[in-house]
Every structure is written in structure tokens, then in C-alpha cells.
């Protein structure tokens, strides 16, 4: 059976989400590197894989899949269902809590962090101004969110329970870039969130994926993805 293929560029937080899951499972995969600046994702051969013209894309046999969290769920369901609250040790309640916190990450965390990362890291390299008002607003949203996370993580080792799950792992890629901005100190007011983040950083899978994610997305050294 041919190994799974994953298409994209390693600096992408969405790609990194998928790579992290693959590394967590130890499953065999082939990374097909694409060029963002070269417009590979807009070419017909990629549009045939993903009509939205985005990465990452996973190919596994006849299945072609997009949306990073859908790919993450598929890989984990197949190779490490306990990270979804499923499998032998799983339960309806456990999997529901993973789903809850994964949706919090998708709809609330990424929404708060993405503008900060875009305006504080990317924009200067692409000739765009920083919208400080938007950054300030996003920091406020993130702080409110971290208040909830702090309360949660004060009673639970990880977001969905005492075992690590996709809900935690899914936060890594955008947090990696947020923590490279001047606002990293925001996390200091939330000691349980900080400890949770440091626990993620200590994972071998996270270290491996992070090695492909320079804090400036590679833009500073002319290594445009």
C-alpha cells in the first residue's frame, strides 16, 4: 500500500496541523512540497485535488481530502483514535469533549490569533501596513479566551480531559507563530495556559514539525514559501 501523501508548504499553520498529527501517529507519509509564491495551489492539477485551491491536501488511496481538521480527524481515526476520545478507551462523552474544544480552537482561537500573526509578522514582508486597532482588538479577544482556558486547565490537565487530544494539538501551529510576536508575554497572566503550552512544546512531534516553521515564515531570508 502506497504511503499517504500530503501536499503543501511546511510553514503553513494549516499544513503544520496535519504534519503534527501524522508525526503523533508515526504513520508513513510522503510530503509533497508545493510553492506558494510559485502559485502551485492555483494550477489545474492542484485544483483537481482541491477545488478551493488551498493546502493542505491529503491523498490516501482513492481518498483526496482537504480542510486541515478534517484531515487531522481522518488520520487520527485511522491510526490513533484515542487522540479523538475514540477507540478502546474512548466514549461518547470523551469524544464529545474533544469535539467541543476542537471547535473552540477553530472558531474562537484561530479567529483571534490569525489577525495578530498576519499583522505582526507577515504584513511587513508583503508591503502591507499593520492595523494596530485590529491587533489590539484581537489581543483583547485572546485574553478573554485565555481566561476561559485558564479556568478549564486549572481543573483538567488538557483541554478535553486528562489525556492530550486533537483539541490541544490543533492549537499548536497558530500558537507557535503568536508566541513569536511581541505579544508572547500575554500568556504569562495565565499560568495553567503557559504550562499547557510548554507541555506541547516538549513533545517530540511538536519539535519535529516546529523545525520546519521559522518564526518569520521564511519571508525574512527571502525563502518565500
Amino acid at each position, binding site marked *: 500500500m502506497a504511503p499517504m501523501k500530503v501536499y503543501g508548504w511546511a510553514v503553513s499553520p494549516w499544513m503544520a496541523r496535519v504534519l503534527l498529527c501524522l508525526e503523533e501517529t508515526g504513520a508513513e507519509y510522503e510530503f509533497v512540497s508545493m510553492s506558494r509564491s510559485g502559485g502551485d495551489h492555483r494550477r489545474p492539477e492542484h485544483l483537481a485535488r482541491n477545488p*478551493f485551491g488551498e493546502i493542505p491536501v491529503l491523498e490516501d488511496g482513492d*481518498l483526496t*481530502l482537504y*480542510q486541515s481538521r*478534517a*484531515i487531522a480527524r*481522518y488520520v487520527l481515526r485511522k491510526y490513533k483514535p484515542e487522540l479523538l476520545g475514540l477507540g478502546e478507551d474512548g466514549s461518547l462523552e470523551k469524544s464529545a469533549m474533544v469535539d467541543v474544544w476542537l*471547535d*473552540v480552537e477553530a*472558531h474562537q482561537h484561530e479567529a483571534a490569533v490569525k489577525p495578530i500573526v498576519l499583522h505582526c509578522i507577515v504584513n511587513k514582508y508583503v508591503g502591507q501596513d499593520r492595523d494596530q486597532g485590529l491587533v489590539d482588538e484581537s489581543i483583547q479577544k485572546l485574553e478573554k479566551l485565555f481566561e476561559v482556558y485558564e479556568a478549564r486547565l486549572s481543573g483538567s490537565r488538557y483541554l478535553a480531559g486528562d489525556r492530550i487530544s486533537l483539541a490541544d494539538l490543533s492549537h499548536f501551529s497558530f500558537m507557535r507563530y503568536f508566541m513569536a510576536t511581541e505579544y508572547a508575554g500575554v500568556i504569562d497572566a495565565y499560568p495553567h495556559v503557559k504550562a499547557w503550552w510548554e507541555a506541547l512544546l516538549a513533545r517530540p512531534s511538536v519539535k519535529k514539525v516546529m523545525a520546519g516553521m521559522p518564526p518569520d515564515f521564511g519571508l525574512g531570508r527571502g525563502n518565500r514559501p
Partner: protein
Amino acid sequence: MSPVKVFGSAPFTNVARVLLCLEEVGAEYEIVDVDFHAREHKGPDHLARNPFGQVPAFQDGDLMLVESRAICRYILRKHRSTDQANLLREGNPEESAVVDAWLYVEALQYDPAVHAVFVQHSVVPALGGEPDERVIAESVAQLKETLAVYEARLGTRSYLAGDEVSLADLSHFPYTRYFMEMPYAAAVFGAYPRVTAWWERLLCRPSVRKVASMMGRDSG
């Protein structure tokens, strides 16, 4: 077995999404209103259920859940009775992955664009403000682009994730229902006959009819 509780009222799209799933599986449920005008959603009782101060919250015995699509997954997983009544396509890894993909397309691409139009068209004027026409135009353009992909996809299958309806399709219902009442709907959906037919198939479902009536005539 006591009925489950849904905190929040039907006109809220995220609440309607949960009600749709409860109706699809025929579960007994109770709606507990949360008074937005009185800011009850930010009060201590509701924050104890949903610490993000949002609706819905969902209670099944000791379990309290938030985030509408996570709640939907729980309901559909708990009540899955047959292979036909399998709105998550669970048991088939490839099919369920495709349902997931299109549920994320709905949540992260379709819904935010419709929401942006809804806020400018319905919410801002109700609060005494002027709609931002640029935001509306951008969001409508984005919707058209997204639906062009749907149109192509629905050429080879009846529903977004395959030939059977799934949560991915149903999840589109609440905000689309409001969008269809807006002047932009004709220009957007008019260009896409297959998407329009897909929408009309959804409207035929008893669960959809029931929740549509619960959402009321006015988009509030």
C-alpha cells in the same frame, strides 16, 4: 430518561443547527430560553453552562456541551440507529472524512460570509447604524466564489458529501434561511441551479420544515 436541554432560542442560527439534529433523530428535548436583551447570556447562570457567553449550551444528564457542531456530532453519534440514519457517515472512514471536510467548509468559509452580510443587513440597522456596503459586496463576492465550487460538486452527487444527506448539508440551513430573505439571494443563488435544487431538497425535509417554523418569520 429525561429529555435533553437546549439553552437558547430557535431564531439563533447556532441553536437552530442543534434543533435540526434533534428533530432528525426524533429525540425528546426541551428548549430553555436565554434572554439576550436582558444580557442573560453574559450572566453567571449561563456562563456556568457556556463560559464563552454564547448560545447554544446543551445538557444531557451530567454532560454540558457547547459549540453547535460539536453538539450536533454528539446527538448524531448517540442516536445513530441504522446505516440510513447516519448523518455523519460513521463506520466508513473515507465517507465520514468527506462529511467532516464539507462541515468545515460550511463552518469556516460559507457561514462567516453569510454572517457578515446578515450583520450589515439586519443587525447594524436594528442598532441604528448604517450598513457597510463594502463589507456586503466583499462577502457576496466571496459567497459567489464558494458556491461556484458547490455548483460543480453537485453536478456529480446529490449532496455535498455524497449521494446521501449529511450533517454537512444540514449545517448550511440556518443561515441560508435568513440569507434567502435578503435582496442579495437572487443574485447569488440565481447563478447556481444545482445549488438552488439542493437547497430545495433540504427544504423538503420534515426536520427542516419544523425548525424553519420555529425560527419564525422575522430574522429579528
